[in-house]
């Protein structure tokens, strides 16, 4: 097959490099080094917004790996994202120390519950490294367990989608309870410091922002490495004709399980980067509606293109930030129409549209 998608053409590499420099070098300088009243100054609102959208882009990339390359449409990636966020949020909550409203040794919401000591699963969360381990392990293990049972019994397609939706729904209900020990409705918020640095200081924010950008870049390169490898080829074959791959002597379970778990871990990392920038994590991140939105970012950009989902996440979330402020009544109409239009008219997303346009212009496949 000569028509495989190329990762990536020279112009795409160039654009990505320029974008990376712009986002990771120029913007931070314009935020930190430029006077606040200068017209070149980049506000902290912009930094936070872009940082947040980059977290979403990581999430969309994770979704692309499972949906685009393995054909597993997950409607429950929000749970992995939120679990990563909660894992790192625990560290941030411990970082508040006795500076909370009640000056207690436990987080404020535990004071409400009249808990005097931390529950067992909070032990060790004051260590940064341990919380990073949790960020990876908790979503990873959940995905591994869930995926093992689901793929082993060959659940796929819509069934799997519905069950992942039930998974995130159940997790949301669980985290809404105060007794679960994660702050109930309100979740975690009011963070003070990370690694001893104030979390509201511009330098800290920029550091987390740049870290997010680097993770996104790394995830993109990792994704490229995976999908162009032999493993990636088998995965795509499983997506297109699972039975045939099985007849050829492959066992699809481990292939699917690996990409599924990796995707969950990526989502968890995205969540962990998201929480310190946004300053809050609560169970609504696990709502089924949030998870299904991730799918539309991926679909808008174009599945199985790696770069498309990032584009989709950026465009949809930029539109969301704009519309929810300027035309709050129309945002859901827009989002709903996006779901319909993209599935009906843009099955390959924007990337598909772009390559179709280019084919028209150059008159051939490039």
């Amino acid at each position, binding site marked *: 097959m000569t028509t495989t998608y190329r990762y990536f053409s020279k112009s795409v590499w160039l654009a990505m490099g320029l974008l990376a420099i712009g986002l990771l070098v120029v913007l931070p300088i314009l935020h930190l080094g430029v006077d606040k009243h200068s017209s070149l100054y980049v506000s902290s609102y912009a930094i936070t917004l872009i940082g947040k959208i980059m977290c979403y882009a990581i999430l969309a990339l994770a979704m692309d790996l499972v949906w685009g390359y393995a054909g597993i*449409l997950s409607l429950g990636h929000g749970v992995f994202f939120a679990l990563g966020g909660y894992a790192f949020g625990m560290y941030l909550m411990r970082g508040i120390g006795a500076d909370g409203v009640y000056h207690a040794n436990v987080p404020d919401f535990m004071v409400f519950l009249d808990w005097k000591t931390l529950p067992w699963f909070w032990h060790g969360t004051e260590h940064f490294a341990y919380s990073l381990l949790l960020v990876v392990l908790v979503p990873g293990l959940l995905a591994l367990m869930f995926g093992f049972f689901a793929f082993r019994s060959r659940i796929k397609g819509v*069934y799997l989608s*519905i069950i992942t939706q039930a998974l995130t729904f159940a997790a949301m209900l669980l985290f809404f309870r105060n007794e679960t020990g994660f702050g109930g409705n309100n979740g975690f918020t009011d963070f003070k410091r990370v690694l001893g640095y104030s979390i509201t200081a511009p330098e800290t924010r920029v550091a987390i922002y740049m870290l997010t950008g680097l993770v996104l870049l790394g995830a993109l390169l990792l994704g490229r490495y995976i999908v162009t490898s032999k493993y990636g080829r088998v995965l795509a074959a499983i997506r297109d004709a699972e039975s045939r791959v099985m007849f050829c002597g492959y066992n699809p379970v481990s292939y699917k399980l690996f990409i599924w778990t990796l995707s969950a871990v990526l989502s968890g990392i995205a969540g962990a980067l998201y929480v310190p920038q946004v300053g809050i994590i609560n169970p609504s991140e696990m709502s089924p509606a949030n998870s299904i939105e991730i799918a539309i970012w991926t679909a808008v950009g174009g599945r199985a293109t790696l770069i498309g989902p990032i584009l989709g996440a950026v465009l949809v979330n930029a539109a969301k930030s704009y519309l929810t402020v300027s035309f709050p009544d129309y945002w*859901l109409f827009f989002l709903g129409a996006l779901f319909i239009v993209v599935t*009906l008219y843009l099955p390959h997303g924007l990337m598909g549209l772009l390559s179709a346009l280019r084919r028209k212009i150059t008159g051939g496949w490039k």
Partner: protein
Amino acid sequence: MTRSAIYLCCIVLALLSLPARAALDAGQLSKLAADDNDAKVAVVKYLASHPSPEAEAVLTAMDNDALYQNQGRLLIVRGDQAIDAATLQALGPVPDSAESIIVNNRLRGAVQGALSAFKLFSSDLATRLKAARDVKQDPRPEQLPLIQQALAKETNAEIHQDLLLAQASIQISSSNEAERLAAVKILGATNNPEVRTKLADMLIQNNGQYNEASPVVRAAAQQALKSIDLRISLARAAASLFSGLSLGSVLLLAALGLAITYGVMGVINMAHGELLMVGAYATYFVQGWFKTHLPQHFDWYVLAALPIAFLAAAGVGMVMERLVIRRLYGRPLETLLATWGISLILIQLARVSFGAQNVDVANPSWLSGGIEIIQDVVLPWNRIIILGFSMAVLVFMSFLLSRTRLGLFMRAVTQNRAMAGALGVPTGTVDTLAFGLGAGIAGLGGVALSQISNVGPDMGQGYIVDSFMVVVLGGVGQIAGTVYAALGLGIVNKLLESWSGAVIAKIVVLVFIILFIQKRPQGLFALKGRSVD
């Protein structure tokens, strides 16, 4: 004939049962004229324990603020005439110097409690029954003489039983061992939680001493407790079984439409919950129309709403099918996303046109209230009727599927589209109609939901996960499976709920379904043989 004779007897007996005429102690009464509220309450207790027409007259007057005092003498004022409170003799016009006796809330409560016991002598059977219920519910020691008098005269078995329980509830604290024993033996039949506490108290040891000294009474108390607890737990179990069935019927209504669109047609419709919402808003609309145009027939608006909700939801469904779903047949994941988009649009439409708040849909009178099986355990009418309604919808649907031409075509198209088309079945139209049918049934579910839960733009979202679980558990393409799955899930959910709380119950059920699908990906009732693929 005999019945009226019995009534007559009752009335005569009731009249006879009025306590003997005895003037009240004027010394006691005069305390009512004082300002001391404790003393006043004591007088009310005295009146309650000395039943007589005078006592009743005084209490009634106090309740109506018609009791006055003139120089230490108590008067009951009727119109402009005064009556002596102690003897009920007419005294002529009300003197100008008469002052009203102030009845504060605490005193009024005592007065009304005392008066309720006097109703035990009413000639009206219903009034007596209600009075007996009241004293059974809230027995007061000062009412004991009244209750005993009434007990001696009462002929109605039900009232008699209630009075016996009330008497026993008071006598359980008696100092006489024989009375206590008799009371405890009767109290096995009570449902009053306070009395149960008293019985349990008897068996508690304090410094090596039982609160109840007599071992005979203790044994009887143990026996009584056992029978009370057994009865209460039976009633509770029946109630939670019912609420499970009720939840199951709601799930069934939500899932039946899905059983057609997803189960039979294989279209995954994430906007199904919003079709429920369309039905509920149609009910709201019809209710508003009845309020302005046919207020005298308001009770029947729910029936009128049924066809309208069906047509509204079916219309929305058919438009959806024609414009969107039709283009996505065979691409289930895309259908899922597109219908999710439709659901967002429908939610926002409802929000823009009816407001983001829940709207008010009232129960008609025949759907309010309920049947009380024991005290505090009520089976509400709206839930009972919805249980029946869901069965009716089920019958309607299976009739359509198995006995009509449309049902035949639907089954033909789903089994072999090409062959059905070749034989002249208009497959495209059948698809649209079938989807409309599934949507319309969701609309009917919406009418039912509007009677038991909130009607708002987001109401459909809560049902989508549940109803897919029902269809998945029941097995695709299986209407019978859907029924068993819905009722089973409802009952399991409610039973777990009473044991572990609502949220945990829901999570346990979801986890169970996830595990269940591992074992049986085809659902509870899998298709076998050639129809599998």
